[in-house]
């Protein structure tokens, strides 16, 4: 019967496709949050596979924080056009008018306005009752108990006391009007699974995941890439060219790079298997104290 065996990647794939189809079938108006990162790339591929030979029956939504790496925006537009995907982009315009930025207002206020607030605006305005996100449980300790279907009240609050038990693969997607669910089809994937799948499926990813020479400055022991002229240089700071790559992508002033020579997928995977540092280490927003992720989630952050 071994001809009927499935590798772990094939099993994860089948499970994710099942989840995506289930939401498409049961929810009135789903949307897929597209962050342009590697996890989103995998999630989009799974959505395409779920509905092939038909098109993906819901749009992608990118919440643009205005400080994304340029390479990400270029990639986003090209990728969605090539793949025939419906892309919606939302930015918190009020915050933009107020001129909120990570340098003058701090990363907390900035992420709250451009990520948390912006996402809620987009979901409310679009009237979406379900939003797919590419988060994985292995990313961070507080995500370990996150459900595949994460229930949000009408204020988009995540009440950890009020989540539904998930048994077998029977998901309960019932919501009252105004309420919504966040759905994480990649819950059971690990970072390594993501890279292996990208490799196996030859999924295109933003080029700065590969090691390249980039202009960088060092801040608090972290390598920050000077992606454009908006990064205020401190006295004495002089951008240096460094061979670096990114393990996860976000807003460039808040995302640290790693020194690396890995310029191809196999090399990244090899490096991955050897390094013993978590990808979140390079995300500054998790560092605002141990419980910060939990707090952000309660407020509606993904």
């Amino acid at each position, binding site marked *: 019967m071994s001809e009927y065996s499935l590798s*772990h990647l094939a099993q994860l794939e089948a499970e994710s496709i099942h989840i995506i*189809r289930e939401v498409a079938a049961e929810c009135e108006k789903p949307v897929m949050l597209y962050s342009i990162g590697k996890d989103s790339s995998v999630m989009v591929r799974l959505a395409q596979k779920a*509905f092939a030979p038909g098109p993906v029956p819901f749009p992608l939504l990118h919440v643009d924080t205005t400080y994304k790496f340029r390479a990400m925006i270029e990639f986003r537009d090209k990728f969605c056009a090539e793949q025939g995907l419906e892309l919606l982009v939302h930015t918190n315009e009020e915050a933009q008018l107020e001129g909120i930025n990570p340098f003058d207002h701090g990363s907390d206020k900035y992420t709250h306005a451009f990520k948390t607030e912006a996402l809620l605006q987009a979901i409310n305005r679009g009237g979406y009752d379900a939003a797919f996100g590419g988060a994985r449980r292995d990313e961070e300790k507080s995500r370990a108990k996150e459900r595949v279907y994460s229930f949000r009240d009408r204020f988009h609050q995540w009440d950890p006391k009020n989540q539904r*038990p998930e048994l*077998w693969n*029977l998901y309960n997607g019932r919501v009252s009007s105004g309420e919504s669910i966040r759905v994480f089809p990649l819950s059971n994937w*690990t970072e390594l699974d993501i890279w292996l799948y990208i490799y*196996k499926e030859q999924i295109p990813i933003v080029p700065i995941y590969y090691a390249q020479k980039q202009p960088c400055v060092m801040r608090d022991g972290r390598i920050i890439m000077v992606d454009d002229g908006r990064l205020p240089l401190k006295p004495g700071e002089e951008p240096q060219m460094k061979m670096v790559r990114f393990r996860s992508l976000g807003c460039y002033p808040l995302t640290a790079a790693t020194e690396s020579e890995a310029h191809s997928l196999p090399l990244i*995977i090899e490096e991955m298997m050897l390094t013993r540092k978590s990808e979140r280490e390079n995300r500054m927003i998790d560092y605002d104290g141990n419980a910060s992720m939990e707090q952000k989630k309660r407020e509606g952050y993904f």
Partner: protein
Amino acid sequence: MTNIDALLEENEAKDLLRFVTAGSVDDGKSTLIGRLLYESKGIYEDQLEAVAQASKTEGTTGDDIDLALLTDGLRAEREQGITIDVAYRYFSTPSRKFIIADSPGHEQYTRNMVTGASTASLVIILVDASKGIITQSKRHAFIASLLRIPRVLLAVNKMDLMDYSEDVFREIVHDFTEFAAKLELTEIDFIPVSALKGDNVVSKSERMPWYDGRSVLRHLDTVHIAGDRNLIDFRMPVQYVSRTNASFRGYMGRIESGAVHVGDAVVVLPSGVTNRVKEVFGPDGPTETAFASMSATLTLENEVDVSRGDVISPVNNRPTVDRALEAMVVWMDSDKLSLTKEYLVKHGTRLIPARITKLQYQVDVNTLHRSEVDSLSLNEIGRCELELSQLVAFDPYRKNRATGSMIIIDRMTNRTVGAAMVLDRGGGAGRSQANWESFSSSSYLAPKASGVSPVEREARDGYCGFTVFLTGLTGSRKRDIALLLEREFFDEGASVVVLDGHTIRSGVGKDLGFDASARSENLRRVAETARVLNDHGVIAICAFVAPYSELRDKVAETIGEERFFGVFVDAPVEYCRKHDAQGLYDKADRGEIKSFPGVNATYEFPTSPNLLVRPAEQSLETCAGLIYTAVKKKFFKKPSLKSVDW
């Protein structure tokens, strides 16, 4: 480059094992998981540093790193006032990826463990060696059996506190085995460990040379799981219908069991319309066949009305289609189960209104006692009858975890309030242990093959044929009791026959083995033989292990409830081992006999036998005497005028 290619290949080919961990607070569950993650490098340096840091302030292990802190959300969460429920962790070895469902052992325990267990193919039950098998261990074993987790690993932890003593370990193994005999657990393994010191967790410990089995990780890594999936009964609940254009209608869904091929004859249920598979699409496009756990798309030869919620199955192997069913229900909500409320049930991809019409009994998770109740509260388990508002295609849970499970949803709060596992219904479709057709239980009333009527027989003999059926483990001495009973009846002039393993298996059942289906067939022959004997006025005394209650019910049904007398010969396993002349237990211990009830297969205790005897406490003569008296009272005509000697 070749190096990395090999590595990639190896990683792509890994399989997946989901397991759940169970243990009560402080048994060392977090420490064990922490160590597995740590030693299999499932932990990143920065996470480890954070734990090393925290160990100094919060740890309980002195100078050692407190590995429990890696996974133990408990302490942190308690402080934050967050509900603690199932957390998922991941690690992998070169051959397998593991998903751990970790549910902490506190008040919400049943609900959490049930959730984690629903997708698990193995459970690690932790026992503290210094405490032995406690109530919670039994509860965990019961839930494992209820959810039908295919295998149990009992990790006897904190062996360091007990001087790594073999006797301590043996005693725990013995106690657990004895309790487990009451449950439906098929594969049980035992490993003595010290999670704290690392003994037998990842590599074999030198401190327990007497233990010759595998370490926990090695066990997880090599245990055979390929047979778990049901690859026989093809079932695909339709999830989504894709109408890309006028000519393409794809039925999308996850194949829950079995396999499907282009050209297969299928039926769409509940409508029952037959069809043929035209095309099969897997994740990478068209293919010849798709099988269990794949997400696939099918097209059918004939245009028919198929919609979400329907189930596609083979024409000649269909699930039961019904609106009524019985299920074991685990209640998961703070609002109690209501027999008047209308709920929603999600089964496969179908969401339908349903009522719980009857609550037959509640099972106490700690003692397995059954009691009559009016309702179920949070974390309580009971056997219920459900009435669905539409026809649904389902299988018994024991046969098919996917098509035999459902969740119950409250219509008002939208919360998931219950988990239900469909039971086999005696005589109905979806038989599993008993694979023979049921007979009308009253057919014996008019035995056509006999020219003598039961009334005439009774008039002459003072009784009609009947069957005394003794069930009990091997070595419970049911045969000896049967022979004493035979003697009693013979001596008073009755016609009596003993049917037991020896008489039946040496002839009538010669061609049969001992797995569940062979046992079923063997008993069917026994029942038929007894029926014929009874029809002709002969008393049949049967002595069989007959480990499944469903099978025993079937025997009673075949013979006729009215002339069936069930006796449970209840003897502890030690007693049975002592009286096992053929050394069968030893063979089963060594693995030479597979599926041996009491060792590596289940013996379902009879819950309502006509009589229970205890050979370990009563003499064999007493046992036989008790049966004799009860049977006399039930089946023999009261002394009539005729029998009074004028």
